């Protein structure tokens, strides 16, 4: 029973992490319909910039985190303007954009490895506090992971509902042509979602830096999980991405209650496989 509770908590924590990744990726994918694989290295770049700020420039942690967010944002927007936009302009087939994105992935990941080296980057002198409810353990990082999802999730929801640009994003996600008809500049909106999506990705990145340290290839699994969460939850739905992320987190942890852990890295994909066979539009999306 202790084990089950612990796994439940782990599932919740990892779920929050995945959900946040999914939200960032889903915002970009849902609005622009671009499969942004380079989301992975952008996420990694966020972690590495935060590390640079903290370890090399000696920024306080919070400022370092912001540096990471800023860097990811810039890189994300740049990847749209310099890479994707030309393709969107001449409305190239989606798979061409997809390959281009893979190319950017390879490029950025190796650039990071060259710039920062391949050893694990850790922010020295930070150790997370440990707490427990009964037999169930959790750490500060876990709290941050959950909190960040709550805060950013709500903030994003508020942004989408209340602000003019938020509405523009919703509109474009719903129907890009109609968005143009009512006078929305879809190009500006695309830049905006790349900015927000990349910024969001940097937050879980920084938390992982603090928890497990940063490695150049950390982005691969991140973008994969994000893509899974979004597709399982339903493209174009932020809530769907969140729920999708939680579902993955849960099966990966609670699912391992009885199943041997050697299948952990696979089970999410098996879930996805069957979800899409049964409900191609995703679990948490109408029509």
């Amino acid at each position, binding site marked *: 029973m202790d084990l089950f509770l612990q796994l439940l908590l782990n599932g919740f924590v990892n779920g929050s992490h995945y959900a946040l990744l999914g939200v960032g990726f889903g915002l970009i994918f849902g609005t622009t319909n671009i*499969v942004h694989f380079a989301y992975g290295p952008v996420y990694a770049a966020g972690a590495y910039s935060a590390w640079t700020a903290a370890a090399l420039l000696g920024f306080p942690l919070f400022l370092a985190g912001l540096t990471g967010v800023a860097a990811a944002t810039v890189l994300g927007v740049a990847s749209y303007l310099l*890479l994707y936009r*030309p*393709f969107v302009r001449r409305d*190239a*087939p*989606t*798979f*061409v954009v*997809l*390959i*281009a994105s*893979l*190319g*950017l*992935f*390879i*490029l*950025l*990941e*190796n*650039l990071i*490895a*060259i710039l920062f080296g391949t050893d694990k980057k850790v922010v020295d002198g930070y150790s997370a506090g440990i707490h427990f409810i009964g037999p169930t353990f959790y750490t500060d990082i876990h709290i941050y992971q959950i909190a960040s999802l709550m805060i950013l999730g709500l903030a994003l929801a508020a942004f989408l509902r209340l602000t003019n640009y938020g509405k523009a994003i919703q509109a474009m996600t719903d129907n890009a042509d109609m968005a143009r008809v009512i006078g929305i500049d879809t190009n500006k909106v695309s830049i905006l979602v790349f900015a927000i999506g990349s910024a969001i990705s940097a937050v879980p990145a920084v938390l992982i830096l603090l928890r497990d340290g940063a490695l150049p290839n950390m982005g691969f699994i991140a973008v*994969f999980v994000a*893509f*899974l969460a979004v*597709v399982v939850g339903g*493209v174009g739905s932020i809530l769907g991405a969140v729920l999708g992320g939680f579902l993955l987190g849960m099966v990966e942890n609670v699912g391992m209650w009885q199943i041997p852990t*050697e*299948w952990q*890295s*696979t089970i999410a*994909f*098996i879930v*996805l*496989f069957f979800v*899409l*066979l049964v409900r*191609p539009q995703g679990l948490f999306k109408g029509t």
Partner: protein
Amino acid sequence: MEYLVHIAVMACLYVILATSFNLLIGFAGLFALSHAAFYAFGAYTTAILSTQAGVPFPIPLLLGVVLTAGVGAIVALPALRIGGHYLVIVTLALQVIVLQVLINGGEFTGGPDGIAGIEKISLFGWRLSSPHTFLPMAIFGAVVCTAIAWRIARSPFGRALKAMRENEAAAQAIGKNIVLMKVIVFAFSAGLAAVAGSLLARYISYVGVDSFSIEETIYILAMVILGGTGNLWGSVVGAIILVLLPELLKFLALPPDIADKMRQVIYGLILIGILLVRPQGILGEHSTAPALARRARKDAHADEEIGTVNGTEPGEVTVSARGLAKSFGGIVAVRNFDIDLRAGTITGLIGPNGAGKTTAFNMLTGFLQPNAGTIELRGRSLVGLKPHQIVREGVARSFQDLKLFTKMTVIENVLVALPDQSGDSITSVFFRPGTVRREEEENFNRAVEILEFVNLADKAHELAENLSYAEEKLLVIARLLATGAEVLLFDEPLSGLDPATLEEIFPIVRRLARSGKTICIIEHNLDVIRGLCDVAVYLDEGHALATGTPDELVSDPELARRYFG
């Protein structure tokens, strides 16, 4: 230089992988990213059979091909349901699952250690242990596999694949069974990839999961994109370039501990560059027709005059529908609809928007199943048949939005629509090449005749997407005609054409009717109805309100009033 020979061997293997992958994504337009998994299946089958059961070459290879083809056919199932990004992610997931199974397979798959000590191929006591000795085998494999892929791509089946890629509905509407086609192309693509895998296992005499990662699929994908989708030579070139590129990059003098990362960066840059500069790849897609044109001898002549339907009395009823009804979520689109279509007669279907004309067509051609009612063609019921079956029965339709195969040439559009081609069956493609070849030549001449019939012969080798408005309409007619169906249903075939052009097209349709075809036309441009139809049926609120000559109907004040709501 053994090293060069080794590169040549690897090039051969990747040529197999790239061409087989191209069949799937380039020709069938199925974007399934699990090719490395098929590659792995072939490699592991050989590895396991030869190390654990000592089965000699080539049995493991053949078994591997069969097994993998089976797996491919299964992977096709999701592809039947979903497309686009979803197929991408599902097949990526599949790839991950396969790798994990191999890693967790314990002794059977060698786990993360992989399987070492795979027996080299021995032929006539000659052991292919060095690259030199193996190269001929690799070339042989590459030639055979490319030839198979080539054969498929250039066959009527391959043409049908492209048609399916361009537009699935239209492919069904000319009698293609797209479900079967998807399963077959997956099976072949996977089976060929397995050959490469099996050869790799024999050549390196070791297999490990790291050789079949997602990166590998992406690598092969890059070869196909670089060379040009829908062009097998492109894949050959793409494979060679991307096999050589990393080797050439090795000659850049770079600091050792970052050298290979730099090369990866350059690889990424090149990939992006190509896509920006030449998204269609080095070699564009090309038509199979010109080759045919050279082969086809004029004397191999199609027997009868275009459009002739044998054994029909002009005026006899061919299609007769009774009491058709269809409603969508409570909204009644068609109710209690009766219609008789007669041979040699052009029937016009008119009525205000939303009267249910297109819905009626969809039911007559199996794209929609009626909630009630009967449809008979010369007494044979058509209810419940799939669209492609109904076409073969003899009822074909065109679409309001044309649905031409835009990336295929005009003559290919017609060729692909010709009925009962033995080349549509993959078995004939390989086991009755003579027949297929002869038919192809006949069909080519047939297609030319059909194009002449609609005055499009001079555009035969144009891409359909480059046609003018009027020419597109003519091609629609030609394609419909090519199906050989005796009943032709045209959904707004002439909309948007100016009077002059109409006058050019009318005679063509009339000739068809004279030659015995049963023709039914939905049209909003009443000039067309007036100028073309012998009979007109007035449809309103889902059922036939009146039948008569066009002039009677359009001059009837009541109907006129209804026409404008």
